[in-house]
């Protein structure tokens, strides 16, 4: 007797691996499609706690009528599903990731070990200082280290990412001006600024005033002068800026802004370029955020977590968020004593607890491995790599600003667009076929068809060479192959070009929104 006994039932086969690029190009079913009623993976401790019924535990009317339908899968299928998904994901660990402005450097594995230490990972955030001296000490060391690197007086470690740091900084600005008895209403940003800058300005309750960039890609000093007045709370700058260029007039800018009583905010996204070379504090900045997930190599986690500590100059210290960890006893034998302390005029709190603490621990490990000497070398090689790429590709792509760049270079493919209709987006997709993640494209906004390349210092000269060869090859193809052939790329990836317009038009934000579900 043979015949069919169709067991698919309502579920997809968890053991079929054609979605792993090793074997095929099929879509991976969702975990919901892999679900089969009654299957389970969980197990809990045996506790011996008396097993009261739910009715005896909560008042009538509060109980849900049906359990939340999450998924019903075996551990085996759970593992296969997420392992296959991981094979459908590019990462720094697989290859070069020159995504400009994001500093996708190598994330040392030792930092994973740090974040997994039971004495760090297993600590409840509400435990009192007396029982968490190690964590407080670690945080103080992070703060002191970041202050030395930036040339500032003190820092809050609460902000969870750069954008949160920006808002923190703007609220500090506001508190400062309020304390002077003269609230202000405007914050200046250059037109090359990252989108989080204007968005944060709005959330800080300020009006955005944009100043244009000059021919050298820097803040136009005349334009700046024309908007500076006593209603300007401050200016937000990235230096090197998002074009990868150093704002040479920074001293003059600082003087001008300070002259009208404004404060200077430093967006630290590009700090990697200047470690140990020049410090924001020494340039005249009053408030500085850092992106530890960029400069200090904490992994980006597919989009986060990060950490965005904010360091400030002396006069702003009383306004910092709290509570802050503080050293009370400085002892030679490593048994310093720490406590929590809230600054007198603190703006309040910017995190549920103390910040993305395990990210801080990772960053500290990275900093300690590099050391003061090593961090300077980080900057040097990051800048060397970017300039090498700039030089190497300057005959192939447009270089909008023909100057030395810092840790990243913004090229433009407008030449290829004009001549052949090949867009930066096409180049980005085509580069995937050559074994590299794409650069950041179409940012900064002021460069047409921008290709923003940040190699980082952890890519070797050989990798740079291969990247350059790939980008030359692509430019050659654009020049030689029929228009449109580039639009086919990428061809080898598990999915081809994705229809973004359709995603927005027919929004399917959950499995349940899918037609038929």
């Amino acid at each position, binding site marked *: 007797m043979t015949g069919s006994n169709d067991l698919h039932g309502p579920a997809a086969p968890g053991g079929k691996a054609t979605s792993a690029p090793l074997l095929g190009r099929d879509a991976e079913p969702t975990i919901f499609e892999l679900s089969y009623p009654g299957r389970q993976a969980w197990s809990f401790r045996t506790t011996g706690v008396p097993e009261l019924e739910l009715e005896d535990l909560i008042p009538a009317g509060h109980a849900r009528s049906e359990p939340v339908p999450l998924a019903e899968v075996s551990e085996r299928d759970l593992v296969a599903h997420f392992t296959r998904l991981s094979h459908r994901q590019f990462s720094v660990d697989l290859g070069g990731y020159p995504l400009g402005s994001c500093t996708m450097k190598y994330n040392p594995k030792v930092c994973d070990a740090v974040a997994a230490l039971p004495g760090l990972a297993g600590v409840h955030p*509400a435990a009192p200082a007396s029982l968490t001296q190690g964590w407080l000490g670690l945080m103080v060391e992070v703060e002191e280290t970041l202050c030395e690197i930036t040339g500032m007086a003190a820092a809050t470690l609460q902000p969870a990412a750069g954008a949160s740091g920006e808002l923190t900084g703007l609220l500090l600005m506001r508190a400062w001006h309020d304390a002077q008895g003269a609230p202000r209403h405007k914050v200046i940003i250059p037109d090359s600024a990252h989108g989080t800058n204007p968005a944060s300005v709005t959330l800080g309750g300020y009006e955005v005033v944009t100043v244009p960039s000059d021919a050298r890609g820097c803040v136009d000093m005349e334009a700046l002068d024309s908007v500076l007045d006593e209603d300007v709370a401050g200016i937000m700058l990235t230096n090197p800026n998002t074009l990868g260029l150093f704002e040479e007039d920074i001293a003059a800018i600082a003087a001008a802004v300070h002259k009208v009583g404004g404060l200077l905010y430093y967006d630290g996204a590009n700090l990697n370029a200047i470690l140990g070379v020049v410090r924001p504090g020494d340039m005249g900045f009053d408030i500085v955020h850092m992106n530890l997930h960029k400069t200090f190599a904490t992994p980006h986690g597919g989009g986060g977590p990060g950490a965005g500590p904010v360091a400030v100059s002396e006069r702003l210290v009383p306004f910092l968020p709290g509570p802050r960890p503080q050293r009370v006893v400085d002892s030679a034998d490593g048994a310093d004593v720490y406590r929590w302390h809230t600054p007198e005029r603190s*703006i309040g709190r910017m995190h549920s607890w103390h910040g993305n603490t395990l990210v801080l621990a990772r960053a500290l*490990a990275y900093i300690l491995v590099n050391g003061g000497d090593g961090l300077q070398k980080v900057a040097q090689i990051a800048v060397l790599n970017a300039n*090498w790429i700039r030089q190497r590709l300057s005959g192939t792509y447009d270089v909008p600003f023909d100057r030395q760049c810092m840790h990243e270079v913004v090229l433009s493919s407008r030449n290829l667009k004009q001549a052949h209709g090949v867009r930066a987006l096409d180049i980005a997709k085509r580069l995937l076929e050559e074994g590299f993640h794409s650069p950041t494209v179409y940012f900064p906004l002021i460069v047409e068809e921008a290709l923003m390349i940040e190699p980082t*210092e952890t890519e070797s000269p050989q990798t740079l060479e291969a990247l350059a060869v790939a980008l030359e090859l692509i430019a050659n193809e654009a020049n030689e192959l029929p228009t449109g052939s580039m639009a086919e790329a990428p061809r080898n990836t598990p999915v081809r070009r994705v229809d973004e317009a359709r995603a927005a038009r027919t929004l399917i934000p959950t499995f349940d929104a899918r037609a038929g579900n």
Partner: protein
Amino acid sequence: MGTYIPHTEDEIASMLAFLGLSSIDQLFAEVPEALKLQRGLELADGAGEPDVLAHLDAYANRNQARTDRLLCFAGGGAYDHEIPSVTKALAGRSEFVTSYTPYQPEVAQGVLQAVFEFQTMIARLFGLPVANASLYDGASATVEAVNLGVAASGRNTVWVSEGIHPHWRQMLATCAAGTGHRLRTIKLVDGVTVWPESDMPVDDRPGVVLVGYPNYLGCLEDVPAARAICNETGAMLVVATDPVSLGVLKSPGEWGADVVVGEGQLFGTTLGFGGPYLGLFACAQSHVRRLPGRLVGETVDLDGRRAYVTTLRAREQDIRREKATSNVCTNQTLMAVTAAIQMAWLGTSGLAELALRCARATRYTRDALLAIDGVEPYATAPVFREFAVRTPLAADTVVERMADAGFLAGIPLGRQFDQGEEGLLIAVTERRTRDEIDAYVTAFAKAVA
């Protein structure tokens, strides 16, 4: 000097030569000399990885309050739940860990699909149709929810229940300095919010009503009462929830919330002294264009294959700039992926079982503690899986004494809720055995004697 830089000296020299430079300092020629740091950073020289690990382990060893030394009875939005090996193994896969925001969806289907599944699970859990890809933590999700609510209602008065986590309320206040929202704290009475009458001048009417379910003290609020105020005033109802409790409790969506937020650490993320955690956020369909943060949507590729991509990007800061719904960029994706894995591990039955076990352990502990002479309920409203007691002496002291006995006893409530220093907030998760609880209660009796 420890370093992750591959370049050898000869390579550096060759690259400099290519650039026409004779020294590496010339790369920084555009940096004004006067600004440059004229000395090395005053940091120790680089160290080997083993030394650095030892240095950090020394800090770790100074933390008495680690779960392998003190049994954890503290909660308040951070819980000592089971994290199985399988969650750690999968969430630790380096493709998830070392990638960034899926700007190139063709090579990011792994993270995108995992987040899509996360969104679906959170939407189902919270009882609302749309959830985003994560925010920083519970506090920031609450801030974003209030911002959305104010924008949606057009009114910036926010009624904030005192039962919202005090840190979250602090962050609301901090951010309100920028947004100008008018926050009004509505007091708890015996554990639940007592709302003001809502027949008030139009100007005083709330644009947003924010309540916890369960609230910070673990108590079950009367959400329909809050909903009723919203119905009368046109305010948006924002509910901050304990996601694990929804394993058995009605979802805030079902209770009529417009936006639901919560802290997602409890789905597979370690306590880690408070971060990185996971801000959960879901809302009604009508608010989707005001949604803060990233959103993954399903679509197709060129060949018609199912694919995922971040969508409705026009809400976001990189496109909309000063008009964006939020400034968030880097979020907590890895924790969202972790939560998706953990929720899939729990599954339909496991989440219900988890919630039930927490409730049972909580009840068992509470009954035993209240039998101790001098230990009183802090509130009598029904609780689900966390509760507060009043101790005969300052809760701080109780915590210190209990630490000597091997327990992290809970979170002292301090002078909040118009009370003295004797309030202690206690959470009992499914990981606590009866023996552990019995020992805790015995130690507690001694500590307060």
